[in-house]
């Protein structure tokens, strides 16, 4: 673990807590209850650190979905959270404006040509994004409306 790792873990933890606060406010007027539960992540660069996961339950206390932080270090992103439900799961990534890209350099007869290919389309600003794997890399900024759609997709629970 190094200083950069400690800093990255701290930044990631804060970012996750901020997102969870936002999600809690989105579902405040619905039948869903949110609970923060501590969990632990262990990454090569950060070492072990404690972070919260967010559970969403219905009025009977039955779990509808949970948001589980995966780690601060992801190729091309500064954090990953999984939204897990019984039907499916969805990947949320913390991305900078523009998103990550691959630089492809090819050398032929001593001449190098370069091009940059983005991993994901549609990353116009920094934030948390849902990555659609079925559409090969479309990123969608997480909003209240999108969260409701994702919740339906992973659990068939309609926010009311």
């Amino acid at each position, binding site marked *: 673990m190094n200083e950069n790792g400690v800093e990255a873990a701290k930044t990631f933890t804060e970012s996750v807590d901020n997102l969870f606060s936002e999600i809690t406010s989105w579902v405040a007027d619905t039948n869903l209850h949110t609970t923060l539960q501590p969990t632990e992540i262990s990454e090569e660069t950060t070492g072990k650190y404690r972070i919260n996961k967010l559970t969403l339950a219905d009025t009977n206390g039955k779990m509808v979905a949970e948001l589980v932080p995966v780690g601060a270090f992801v190729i091309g992103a500064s954090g990953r959270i999984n939204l897990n439900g019984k039907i499916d799961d969805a990947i949320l990534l913390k991305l900078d404006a523009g998103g990550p890209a691959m630089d492809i350099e090819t050398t032929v007869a001593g001449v190098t040509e370069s091009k940059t290919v983005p*991993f994901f389309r549609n990353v116009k600003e920094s934030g948390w994004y849902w990555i659609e794997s079925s559409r090969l890399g479309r990123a969608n900024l997480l909003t209240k409306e999108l969260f409701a759609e994702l919740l339906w997709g992973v659990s068939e629970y309609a926010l009311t």
Partner: protein
Amino acid sequence: MPSLNNILEPVWETYQTTRDCLKITSKSISKNQFAILRNTKFAGNTVDAAELLISDSRKNAEDFVILSLWAVFERKLLEYIQNKGKKLLGTTPTIFCSNLHQKIERDMEYWKSNDLLELFKPVAGHDLVGKAKQVKQYRDWIAHKNPNKPSPANVLPLEAYKILSAIITTIEQHPDFKKGAVLNDSCM
């Protein structure tokens, strides 16, 4: 970026199909459509047990696709080298060239993945090769699943697919590797 003849595409399609099948099965269980599940692994399970099985399978599918993508990709890199190695034989191979060819054929199976990737840096570039090494590192962590070892940088299946596909596409479009590329066939 993935080309029409992308050797990794069947692996990716299988992964997507697996995820969709698990989704459909979950929906059948949640809608109590148990008749559909007759003669399957889920018949006779409680709903909770079936849901746990599906959840575990979804996680495993994400791990397995990384392992599969890497296996197919690495084999393809070795194939490119084998094809290049055949040029050593030419039309009238010298004894030295034959020996060198045999040694490459024999030893290449033991080359470290990172060393193999380094060979393709002039073709695909530092950044792509560096990202492929990260995919390999994550692949190794999944394969060994040592609970005492912290995880390296996480790799989404989609990212692994795109990175490894980009390398294959770039190699196949490179003049040195394009089908029909003509090289001097004398070894010395």
